[in-house]
């Protein structure tokens, strides 16, 4: 009898869960991998599975969190689409049962269209790989060249804390200052990409790493 009772309780729970999930199906536009099964394998060749988390600033901490993220970014969330209710899709990547890294992408306004900047990160928040999932630019070929993405490998939020997203200035001798723009004519998109990376790293730190880089006193 208890077994049947438990079964009923579980069924009810599953139904309620489905209703709650259904309500999450149509939020503001987020940034998902085009083909998660393929992309996770490409970014983490040893991966055996992944989990997907959907988090928004509104859900996670509301206005105070938004203010903190903006302070860490050194810029306000702007425009019609960079809002606190944007759902961020975080991919937690596993090898067997062990968590081996994260993948996260953000939308960023570029000169001619939306950029989608994805980072694959290790468990400490160091960048393993960088790539544009979406980019509209006359110089897209140069910006999408793997040699540009390789300049980001090994960097983390500590490096990007020294980068000012509003002026594009970076600390002399810093690792971000060493990143070369392969298309000087597309300076807007280059700076948009750097802003997207910094924002991406801050969100991962807030949502997944327990503000590791904030505790370290790594703020500018």
């Amino acid at each position, binding site marked *: 009898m208890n077994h049947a009772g438990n079964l009923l309780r579980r069924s009810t729970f599953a139904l309620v869960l489905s209703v709650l999930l259904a309500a999450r199906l149509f939020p503001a536009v987020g940034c998902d991998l085009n083909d998660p099964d393929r992309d996770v394998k490409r970014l983490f060749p040893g991966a055996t599975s992944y989990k997907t988390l959907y988090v928004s600033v509104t859900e996670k901490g509301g206005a105070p969190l938004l203010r903190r993220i903006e302070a860490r970014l050194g810029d306000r969330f702007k425009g019609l689409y960079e809002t606190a209710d944007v759902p961020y899709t975080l991919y937690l990547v596993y090898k067997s049962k062990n968590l081996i890294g994260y993948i996260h992408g953000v939308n960023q306004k570029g000169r001619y*269209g939306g950029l989608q900047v994805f980072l694959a990160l290790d468990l400490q928040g160091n960048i393993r790989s960088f790539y544009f999932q979406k980019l509209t630019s006359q110089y897209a070929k140069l910006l999408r060249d793997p040699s540009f993405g390789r300049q980001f490998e090994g960097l983390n939020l500590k490096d990007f804390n020294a980068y000012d997203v509003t002026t594009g200035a970076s600390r002399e001798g810093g690792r971000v200052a060493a990143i070369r723009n392969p298309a000087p004519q597309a300076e807007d998109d280059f700076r948009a990409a750097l802003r997207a990376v910094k924002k991406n790293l801050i969100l991962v730190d807030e949502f997944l790493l327990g503000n590791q880089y904030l505790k370290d006193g790594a703020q500018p």
Partner: protein
Amino acid sequence: MRQKISVYQVAAKNLLRKKNRSALTVLGIGLSAWVLLSLLGFNRGYEAALNKDIDNMGFQVLVAAKGCPYEAATLMLKGGTGLRYMNESVIRDILRHPEVEKVTPMLMQAVFDPNKGESGGLSAYLGVDPATFPALKSYLKFKQGAWFTDTRSHEAVLGYEAAELEQREVGDLLLIPEKNIELKVVGILARSGTQDDGTIFVPLRMLQKEFGQEGRVTGIGIKVDRRADITALENRLYDLPDVQVVSMAQVKETIMSLVSTAKVMVLSIALIAILIAMLGVVNTILMSVIERTQEIGIVKSMGAMPWDVFRMIWTETVILCLLGGGVGIGLSAALSKVTDVLIRRLLPYTPTGSLVAIDSGLALLTLVVILGIGLVSGVYPAWRAARVRPLESIRSEGE
């Protein structure tokens, strides 16, 4: 003091004696009621959503270059790229018909954007005439800015979803890849819930010039006088050379015939679910009757007539079905969004708006159907209970 016990109380108490069995039976009936009501809701909702999409087109007839009619339907409803051209001078011929109230020429062009996604993709642009198109699409409202005023300007108006994807606002630039043409965004439409949300509108003449299609269009939308006979007009438009006429009625008919296959599939599943639920009811009540044979015998020896026993057992069935029907209606209402998503994955074309329209009328109809099936299912167990012979059943207890 004597207290009269009603047949409903006895039936309810009997069901509560085997709570889990009763609950599982209610759940089974509930699931079949859910499938049935969702199917009925889909039947109504899909057609309503399709009608709304068609109304939102702003015109009732589309004239396109001769070709596959399905391409034209796709062009109209999905903003696809059925790139067949016709001469713009056709507009003059169309306007000669007195039933024609307004016309608007359109040119759809697409370019391959190698930087769209991982392996590139198509970007489509709809060239429209700012003098005629907005009047036919009066339901479109702006979130920012307004329509372009010059039909040759390098400007663009974006549907809300297109703007959101491209992160564009009024004053921003937009690039037509391949051609490297810069456009200035002058308007962002508010969400309309139609295919226009994902469309990039540009001035017709500019698009014709930049793509080398001067004097050519891919479609002409026609708004017909409300009192006019659309079928008669369509027949006359067929006389125009090298064009095909697609009316919204045709489009609707084509899509509905495609969907009818899916409907038959879902109806079959619903019938199987109802059959299983019916067997579940028969099983539950029959088991209950067999377990209570002696008890029924005692009730009869105390003066209960066969009809009283029949009614008592039948009432149990009715209670189970009412509860199951209620659960099913609740599930349908709560999970209508999930059903909507599942249907969208299943069907090749789905209109915008809600596909599952459940209202109190359909809910009541479902309850009546479930109750009817329950009453039929309860006849045999109730009849068997009514036939129990008191002496034999009491004697079997002693043995």
